[in-house]
């Protein structure tokens, strides 16, 4: 197995790894990438840490990130309107899911962008963006963080209260992190390049998802809603059928009420 270094990563020749920083240990790849983004680093800047000492998820939640995982953040400078930025997380989820399938892990997507195997989280995605609040509202940058539980045991993650799994646990062996990174970058690049054709991205999302058709509970704006996830809107919002009628969700923490995950349709079982 090749170690992750600026040289080995550079040899992948990915457009998402034009500038590469690799750290033995770093507080948070996301924070470092955000610093670089604000300082004007180009599209395709990649920050990798073998260990994150202060890994953070959404809303600052701690995310265990010991050695053996793939902890990365990418700086993107997409050339589309800021109003399309909310497509990034689902688009990234499709790319990450395809990369996992490529290495033999049959992951599915929980709306909007969590990657699960057997109902347990294997990978988290965190996206942040900065907008220039000017006429036209272009997106200045997006920072995409991907935390992949790779060559680890689930107990290494130190999040006993959450349902987590790892690539090692699912495959029964470790994977080459450079090969995993290659699959990840090439699938992310392909998906992000067709973000304007969001219908096609969402079609793949549907084939990979485990949320549609499920009963879910969601907390948002201080209330709890329960219902059945029936469909997506054209922009990827989740339509939830509840006793009060159909509710459109743009955000919120969803919880599947029935255990287990499945891919969206039977044709997905042979690939995506």
């Amino acid at each position, binding site marked *: 197995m090749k170690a992750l270094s600026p040289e080995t990563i550079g040899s992948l020749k990915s457009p998402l790894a034009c500038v590469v920083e690799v750290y033995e240990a770093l507080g948070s790849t996301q924070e470092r990438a955000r610093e670089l983004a604000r300082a004007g680093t180009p599209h395709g800047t990649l920050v990798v840490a073998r260990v994150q000492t202060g890994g953070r998820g959404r809303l600052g939640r701690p995310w265990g990130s010991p050695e053996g995982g793939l902890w990365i953040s990418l700086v993107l400078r997409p050339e589309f309107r800021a109003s399309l930025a909310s497509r*990034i*997380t689902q688009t990234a989820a499709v790319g990450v899911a395809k990369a996992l399938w490529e290495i033999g892990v049959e992951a599915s997507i929980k709306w909007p962008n969590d990657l699960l195997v057997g109902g347990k989280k294997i990978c988290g995605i965190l996206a942040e963006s900065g907008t220039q609040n000017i006429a036209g509202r272009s997106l200045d940058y997006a920072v995409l963080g991907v935390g992949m539980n790779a060559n680890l045991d689930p107990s290494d993650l130190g999040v006993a209260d959450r349902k987590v799994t790892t690539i090692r646990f699912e495959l029964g062996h470790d994977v080459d992190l450079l090969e995993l990174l290659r699959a990840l970058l090439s699938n992310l690049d392909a998906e992000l390049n067709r973000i304007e054709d969001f219908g096609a991205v969402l079609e793949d999302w549907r084939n990979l998802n485990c949320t549609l058709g499920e009963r879910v509970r969601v907390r*948002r704006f201080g209330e709890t809603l329960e219902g059945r996830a029936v469909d997506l809107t054209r922009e990827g919002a989740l339509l939830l059928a509840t006793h009060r009628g159909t509710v459109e969700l743009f955000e919120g923490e969803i919880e599947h009420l029935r255990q287990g995950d499945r891919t969206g349709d039977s044709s997905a079982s042979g690939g995506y």
Partner: protein
Amino acid sequence: MREVEQIVELLRESGVGEIRVRNGEVEISVKARPEAPAAPPASQAVAQSLPEAVEPESSPEMDGLHAVRSPVVGTFYRAPAPGEEVYVEVGDTVSAGQTLCIVEAMKLMNEIVADVSGEVVEVLAENASGVEYDQPLFYLRPDER
């Protein structure tokens, strides 16, 4: 919706540029289109018939205030994480490029920055509440140049 119709009617009759009605957390703002034909001047009778909650006023933008608007539909957060300090308070002086808030859409945390330097005059959305595309989030009073 009947109330909105009534406000639109009032706007038409009164000739003011904008009417905003706030009732608890709900705020309805109705603006006249600039290209609309000039409405007759407000008569005393119309002004007196306004319900108490309706206060016709000039647009804050016309008072020299600058609105920072949401570029997306999402959830408005005033702090980077629950329990942490808010990015800005009313009365703070901010510089262009400084982060004012986050609007989360589809788990994309969108940092909204001040596009002018100045003073934060008003925070227009509640923390952790839903905001619409183009909704004003803050009023800033730009620095004198």
